[in-house]
């Protein structure tokens, strides 16, 4: 009979509701919850190495979207659900640190002298565990078709991108919406040696820009698919895309800016002790090797070999990046960029 059938469904739903409520309290202490902005594969390899070593189970939410993860940490501040927030530059971790949402910890490795001081937060709130430079990505086929005939140079430096042959052919980032876009903007200011000179350069660069991509990963598909000849991207994303067979070339230009890939412990998380062990683990030689090899990143430890297809970190010339200045002036500089450049575009 239909009626009985309907009643059965209702009962089933109610049972499901009751059963579902169960897992709320079921959180064994030998588990840590990790919010990760790293790529999935590296996370998997790290987890498989960490679990047997410590007996602590890792439950990770991997989104390759560090900002979204950080926003979750913030919105859960009243009752934190995560123990670890990993991935994304120190710029993403710093606001959480400032608002007291992170737990201070000083891993032994940070004082061992094997990790350069620039990757160590003296307060111990975040911990740099990889480095990555901004690179120029190039679509070789399009370069040969569109830039070469007009006498444009292959982009070896940031200034090469100012050549008129590149007009309207570059995919950059919007500093108002992409953290990396702001690091690029600040980097150019430091490279030019002053705010006014920096904005002068950015205005000239603007003539070359076809689009200011709204998200971090947005520039690579634009260049691969020929919407732009060249673009700005992170090295790890680029190397990973090339490894996956995407037709792409890259150049690490001199005086480039970089990110400090960071990990932090969420204050008040369910298993802070386990979280500390995970931070220790990420800074070990073995974990750093995994991060270098599968994550396509530069390890922060000086005693860990880098990928054979990467130039030595010491051979890269980074711009003098004044991180405190960049962090303090973010709102003002983004607004200025918006006024001088962003709002002028059609």
């Amino acid at each position, binding site marked *: 009979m239909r009626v009985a059938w*309907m009643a059965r469904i209702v009962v089933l739903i109610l049972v499901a509701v009751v059963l579902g409520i169960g897992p*709320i309290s079921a959180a064994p202490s030998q588990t840590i919850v*990790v919010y990760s902005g790293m790529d999935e594969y590296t996370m998997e390899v790290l987890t498989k190495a960490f679990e047997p070593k410590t007996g602590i189970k890792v439950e990770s939410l991997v989104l390759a*979207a560090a900002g979204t993860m950080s926003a*979750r940490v913030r919105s859960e501040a009243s009752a934190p659900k995560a123990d670890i927030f990993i991935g994304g530059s120190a710029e993403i971790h710093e606001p959480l640190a400032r608002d007291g949402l992170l737990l201070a910890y000083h891993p032994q490795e940070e004082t061992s002298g094997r990790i350069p001081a620039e990757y160590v937060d003296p307060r111990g709130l975040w911990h740099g565990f990889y480095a990555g430079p901004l690179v120029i990505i190039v679509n070789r086929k399009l370069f040969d078709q569109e830039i070469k005939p007009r006498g444009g140079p292959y982009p070896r430096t940031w200034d090469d991108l100012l050549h008129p042959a590149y007009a309207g052919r570059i995919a950059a980032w919007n500093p108002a919406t992409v953290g990396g876009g702001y690091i690029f903007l600040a980097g150019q200011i430091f490279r030019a040696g002053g705010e006014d000179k920096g904005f002068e350069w950015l205005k000239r660069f603007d003539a070359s820009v076809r689009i200011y991509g709204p998200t971090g990963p947005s520039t690579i598909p634009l260049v691969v698919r020929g919407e732009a000849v060249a673009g700005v991207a992170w090295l790890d994303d680029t190397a*990973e895309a090339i490894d996956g067979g995407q037709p792409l070339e890259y150049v690490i230009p001199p005086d480039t800016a970089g990110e400090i890939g960071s990990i932090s412990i969420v204050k008040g998380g369910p298993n802070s002790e386990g979280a500390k062990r995970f931070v220790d683990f990420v800074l070990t030689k073995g974990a750093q090797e995994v991060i270098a090899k599968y994550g396509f990143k530069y390890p922060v430890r000086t005693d860990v070999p880098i990928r054979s297809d990467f130039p030595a970190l010491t051979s890269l010339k980074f711009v003098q990046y004044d991180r405190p200045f960049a962090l303090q002036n973010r709102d003002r500089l983004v607004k200025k960029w918006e006024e001088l450049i962003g709002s002028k575009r059609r």
Partner: protein
Amino acid sequence: MGRVDRQQAAVTYGIWKRIAQSVDRLGDPVLLLGFLATTLIIALFVLYPVIRVVTYPSSQDFVGLLDHPRWMRAIVNSLTMAGLSTVTACLLGFVFALALTRPDIPGQGLFRAISILPLFSPPFTVAFSYLLLFGRLGLITHTLLNLRVDILGWRGLWLSQTVSFFPIATIAISRVLENIPANMEFAARNLGANEVSVFRTITMPLARPGFAGAMLLVALYVLADFGNPLIIGGDFPILATEAWYQIEGWADLRAAAMLASLLLVPALVLFLMERRWVSRRQYTTIVGRGVRGERRATPRALKVFLLVICSVASLFVISIYAGVIIGSLTNVWGADWHLTLRHWTAALRRWPHVKNSLVVSGGAAALAALLGLLTAYFTRGKALVASAALDFGAMLPAAIPGVFLGIGYLLAFNGPPLAFSSTIWILILALCFWNLPFAYKTAASGFQQIDHMLEEAAENLGAPWFRVFMDVYFPLLRRTVGAAFITTFVNSVTNLSITMFLVTAHFLVATVSILALVSDNRLGVGAALTTLLLSVTFGVVALGFRWIGRSVLVD
């Protein structure tokens, strides 16, 4: 006693009288309790999260808005796109509705399928297909037609939103067109009117409220649209994506909550307009049954016009989906055309995410259908103040953009009194209440078709309200409940704007998995997973249709 006092007393008396009437109407204490519980539940799961989001930013954040030219532009752009895309989507929807409601148009089966397909699409990957086919080096625009077009930006967005949302207009408008009695048109013709004036004086005026309703509904969708502007919009700022950029780029939850709140304003205005001007008026003509005259053959010119437009649009939609399938089977989407199955192997490893999507969506759909039915049961006969409030509450989520609700649930249910943000219930409940308006409206229209004498008869025979509900209404409303279930299910499976904020570490759903793949630049796997999700959803819905019989998908 002064005059004012007396007036006040009269007012107080009036209020008490109405409340007393309400109580009387809901005389059965169990019924009253049910009513109160439903109201409380809706207040808790709809109003409370809204309040949490709106009060999260400080008033200074709202004032600071004037300093941000980008966000001011985002407001203008959001409203502009809502205008542009709504008009074109509704026009296209109208053409499809005309073609589908005239019996003598060939190829209706195909057109019907095409007019539903976009509803099943998870965001992102489909938008990528536009880039692949119609971009600067697009397969169709560049390779085939040797054109240089710029799809990134508002023009491309206009196109993709039109295609994404015309199905909603088609469904809403064809409902109205079906209700226009053919014998009225027939009578007009007998009186000597030609086709043009029949269309102008009979069809159009009767279709107008339906058209207006469709426009407001589509406008709500366009305002909240997230996947299209993210991929196609380029750096064209609109509110829905800007809120997410603030989160993803800067982890700035306050700015995001503020931008999402701004989005709520036009959405609420549209919502109130819809309620005031469309829902409340009964435009449908009441005629006796069985006197429907035969519809006359469609004039040749109109037939050709409908066929051409529908065929072109269908071809377009098919090519977009073919693009996704091709992307899932070639080495590097759009760059290396060698066939491969590696994306499918990777996608199939993510089957648990698809399964989670089905579980969450099934749960949300079952709850929404049940709650919609209950709410509709309590609001039958709108005369009562209390039931009008309940009706408003149940319809309110229609005005809440997904991003807003996602943030709201995260803020509202993370701490006491209700902390379940780390369980799958947060996903189920968020999706359930987000879809409540569809379920509720479907159920309400179902109740309207049932004679209340049936209920009275059952009551006279001594049946308590629960028996009446279960034994009289539930069986009669099987199709209605089924339709509500399917709509909610499809909406939930394809949702990203809510799930992206609420997934937990051990319960990832497919749309979020697709987002992660796209962020990781693994578009091939993303395309394969999209195809997989699409086919499974389609399969489930086809089974559902078989069970309830052909019915209307979306109200």
